[in-house]
């Protein structure tokens, strides 16, 4: 490994956020009675999403929509496209049933907001500037892959009655107004409308405590991810490998695409992180709603117990090294 990469990995592993994640993993493994209340989990989610949304919106108001639309479109297209190649890989190389392949593919095309936030945290830490409006890419990448994945899966699954029947409408509703999209897009627009002045007023809340809140949240996510570790043996070696290789591949593609779309080193790296990350809240919820036949153990374990920890610890510095290599 090149010394730069090693250094980046070490810097990442020794950041408070990642160490709290590790503490969470340990807490779950030793079966500590530590447990976050559900209300705290939701509160942290709302906080993190509105904070990055708002800051992203302010950044858009500074940069102008003209700068943002092209890479945002690229992000959207990439998200929608990823299931198109992951589905056949899982279906034919992995021999998964069609609905399961579609469900897993949807997860990897969609994104993990926490992974994205951890990556911006990493960039701050190594003093690498990035386009703050990258939050807009996060916002547009959550839903397209979910819709594509459901369409792929629906051809195979069959809903027997009207409770299941009209789900396409509901999926599109979720894609547009689901909690995380609504908060992100809403806060983005608010930030764009308020501009710098709005940020000055609220930075004691949206900026000052942000990094510490992220650390606390990753403590919880460490526990949540580790609880799924027991399912690793149920998913098979193919999905284990997929959970590490898919993000690496998508990270490369994302970094390249981000670079091509004119982003800075930091921005291209974030693009790679988004492509590499897999959704573990929005996508599972959508799958239970629209493809309830798909086996949740498969997609939850790969997204939450393999890809998420991999990205948080090793992936982020790797995509950073990739972006640096590409840029030079």
């Amino acid at each position, binding site marked *: 490994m090149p010394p730069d990469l090693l250094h980046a990995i070490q810097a990442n592993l020794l950041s408070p956020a990642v160490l709290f994640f590790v503490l969470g993993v340990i807490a779950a493994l030793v079966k500590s009675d530590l*447990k*976050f*209340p*559900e209300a705290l*989990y*939701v509160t942290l989610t709302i906080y993190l999403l509105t904070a990055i949304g708002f800051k992203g919106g302010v950044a858009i108001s500074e940069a102008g929509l003209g700068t943002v639309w092209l890479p945002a479109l690229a992000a959207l297209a990439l998200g929608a496209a990823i299931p198109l190649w992951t589905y056949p890989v899982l279906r034919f190389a992995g021999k998964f049933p069609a609905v399961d392949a579609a469900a897993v593919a949807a997860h990897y095309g969609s994104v993990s907001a926490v992974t994205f936030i951890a990556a911006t945290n990493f960039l701050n830490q190594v003093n690498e500037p990035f386009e703050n409006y990258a939050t807009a890419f996060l916002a547009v990448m959550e839903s397209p892959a979910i819709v594509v994945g459901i369409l792929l899966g629906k051809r195979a699954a069959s809903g*027997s*009655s*009207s*409770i*299941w029947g009209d789900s396409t409408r*509901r999926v599109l509703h979720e894609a547009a107004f689901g909690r995380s999209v609504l908060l992100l897009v809403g806060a983005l627009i608010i930030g764009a409308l308020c501009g710098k002045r709005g940020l000055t007023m609220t930075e004691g809340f949206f900026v000052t405590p942000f990094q510490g809140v992220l650390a606390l949240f990753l403590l*919880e996510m460490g*526990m*949540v991810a580790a*609880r799924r570790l027991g399912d690793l043996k149920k998913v098979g070696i193919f999905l284990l490998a997929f959970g590490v290789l898919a993000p690496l591949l998508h990270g490369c593609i994302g970094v390249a695409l981000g670079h091509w779309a004119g982003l800075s080193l930091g921005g291209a790296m974030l693009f790679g992180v988004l492509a590499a990350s897999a959704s573990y*809240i929005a996508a*599972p*919820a959508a799958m*239970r*709603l629209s493809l*309830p*036949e798909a086996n949740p153990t498969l997609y939850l374990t790969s997204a939450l117990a393999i890809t998420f920890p991999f990205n948080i610890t090793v992936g982020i510095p790797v995509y950073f090294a990739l972006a640096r290599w590409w840029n030079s």
Partner: protein
Amino acid sequence: MKTHPMKLVTVICETLAREHLTRLLAAVGAHGYTLFPVEGDGSQGQRPGDIAEFGNIQLEVVVQPAIAEQLLARLHGEFFPRFAMIAYTSDIQVLRPDKF
């Protein structure tokens, strides 16, 4: 006070089945329902409930016996194969039978 027999159907299931369930209730003609988040353990593993999406809800609905029958049948056919859940009925007595 004259009381009237009615059925209470209790469903404990993963939170993500919620919307399907409430739509089913409307479909069979229930007039209301009550629900709350619960933790649980069962054949599909522990559900600690710190993230609603990975947790359980308990749903209770008071209905006429005939509707309970119908509800159970559809739970059996459409929900049991798809979701982590249990369901059971019990006999209760209410005062305002026309409300249910």
